[in-house]
């Protein structure tokens, strides 16, 4: 099965960057076959469509204002999300997601299944970094992604030793900029 794991969010907007953080954590802790793509797409708007095109399974990780405590993980199916949509304050990336899906559906190229893994943010403030409650949920989010894949028969296993995640946008405490 072809699957794409997509982290959405602006890495400079505090907890809005939880999508990129979660996929990078997943990449460092788990490994999958070549039919699984793991992508940090930032805030692509309508440019999301090419990445959803003709794939069988899409898992999107994004900050979702679900009214639950910060760091809470919630899994939504596409139908579930559409029907409860009115009650959810979704992120700014939502219009791009639903429009891209609608376009692909009309063109007959939509993914067979779409799952949204939402993480409730605490604070989406520019340049203030990710909050403790949300960054603590990243490993759990990676585990949920792995379970979603395995449940659907997609091979995915925990790495014996975690690789180093590339979190270039997060300030690193106590580390001065390398001298040139």
């Amino acid at each position: 099965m072809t699957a794409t794991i997509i982290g959405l969010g602006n890495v400079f907007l505090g907890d809005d960057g939880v999508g990129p953080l979660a996929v990078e954590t997943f990449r460092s802790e788990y490994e999958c076959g070549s039919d699984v793509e793991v992508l940090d797409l930032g805030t692509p708007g309508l440019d999301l469509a090419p990445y959803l095109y003709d794939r069988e399974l899409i898992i999107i990780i994004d900050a979702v204002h679900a009214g639950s405590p910060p760091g809470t993980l919630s899994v939504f199916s596409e139908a579930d999300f559409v029907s409860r949509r009115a009650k959810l304050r979704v992120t700014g990336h939502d219009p791009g997601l639903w429009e891209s899906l609608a376009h692909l559906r009309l063109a007959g190229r939509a993914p067979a299944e779409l799952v949204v893994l939402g993480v409730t943010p605490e604070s989406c403030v520019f340049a203030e970094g990710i909050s403790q409650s949300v960054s603590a949920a990243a490993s759990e989010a990676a585990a949920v992604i792995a379970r979603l894949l395995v449940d659907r028969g997609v091979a995915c296993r925990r790495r014996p030793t975690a690789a180093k995640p590339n979190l270039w946008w997060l300030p690193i405490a106590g580390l001065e900029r390398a001298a040139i």
Partner: protein
Amino acid sequence: MARISIDPVTRIEGHLRIDVEVDGGAVNKAWASCTMWRGLETILRGRDAREGWVFAQRFCGVCTTVHAIASVRAVEDALSLDIPPNAQYIRNLILIAHALHDHIVHFYHLSALDWVDILAIPKADPARAASIAEGSSAWSGNSRRELEAVQSKVKGLVESGQLGIFSHGYWGHPAMRLSPELNLILFAHYLQALDFQRKSCQVVAILGGKTPHIQNLAVGGVMNAINLNSLATMNMDRLGMLQSILEDLIPFVQQVFLMDNCLLAASYPEWFHYGKGVANYLAVPDLPVDAKATQFDLPGGVILDGKLSSIRPILNWKDEGFRKAVTEDSTHAWYQGGGPLQPYKGESVPDYTDFQENAKYTWVKAPRYNGSPMQVGPLANILVGYAAGHALTRKWTETAFQGIASVHGLKVTPDEMQSTMGRYLARSIRSAMLAELALEHLQLLTNNILKGDDTTYNLPQFPSGEIMGMGMHEAPRGALSHWVVIEKGAFTNYQAVVPTTWNASPRDEKGVPGPYETALLGNPVVDPEKPLEVLRTVHSFDPCMACSCHTLDATGREIAQVKVQ
């Protein structure tokens, strides 16, 4: 007299508010306001100058690569560092593929529905539509069967009563005037465009390592390994793959995208007479063909007062005139201070008031060129090329004019391009040119590699004292420049003067309005509750507010509110 406020304008990237006063069915005053704060520069200060591009490409979720490239060019300019020819060609191919992607999405997915009425599609005769479409181009996707399939999908949507993402369009508006058949043809291409959007992404991914955030750049060149004997690097297979994707993509751009704009122009000729606005145009040279960037495939220049004969060329990136001419003023923007500042000395300290039409009303500063507002974008690009006698620009502009005339004889002149419709047409002409240049630059790269040159990178050396540099790029939305001040290898100032800042500029310290604000004057508005005509002119600029200011609103209202007072 009615006062209309559209907040936010939909089908653009980011948040834009437009206010207009309408009297006697036409706009007589307009204000453009960006409702999000921009704080990009704050993030760059203190960063390692070699890594600035990694951060700069997150300025915007859509125009990622353009900021990455402008950033490395600015640092290379500060260091007077040339890059190898392979690096120029690889960067150029990425820029071309990204621009094609961007222009396709803008026309079909962000603005076509200002002109195409979905609810009219069920009334179309697919056989007639197929004969019109097949008569206008050799494209294979215009068969009766193809069009029938699209029509039946739209019928299903309309009959279900669940229009979904299409439920807020101005369907049946009196300004919608395409025949049912043309509506069907354009909407069929709207769906087909998704495949070509994807193909242009593949080109960027092959060269850049990843999309939308490329990984292959470096100050000094690119990090692509070139070895014709290795499977893992840039080799003849990879080059062949690029060639074959481009050969699929190019016919769609040159035969479908360009022709659809000709059909639109022939059907809405009055839009060549609305939306002129600021008639000063600025385009910067791009697609360098040599290591030292002395020759370019896209010419740059300045045109004043709409007179093509006034052109002053910008021959290369070292152009002193350009560096001295650009200033930004924040008299009407929510920043401290007022008067015009040169970007190296630019400041961005927030000073938010409410929307005050006679004082501060936007997060966008007012950039000026020797004190004048300038219009940037594909139209500036095409007018500058046309005025400079650039052969490729002339060839595709004439092709477009013939395409329009072939529908029912409408003659368009380069002067009439200075209009809302001209901006749409220019974008499709520019795309046809870029499609042709894509193959040329792939050939330049292949030839250079076959010559035995596998160099892609020159090592940067940073002095300890202060250096300044400016990087230009003629981006999909127009002239972009990044201005950097570097000390001991780190940024001490970073200012980006982005295309949408030029076009969405507020009034300046002298009260002179910017291009959006001016272009809307005289724009018709039949129904103040449904200001479709205002959207046509605003969308013709392809607004992208995400980097002209900053995305701060994470909740994102979806439906534009139109308030009429």
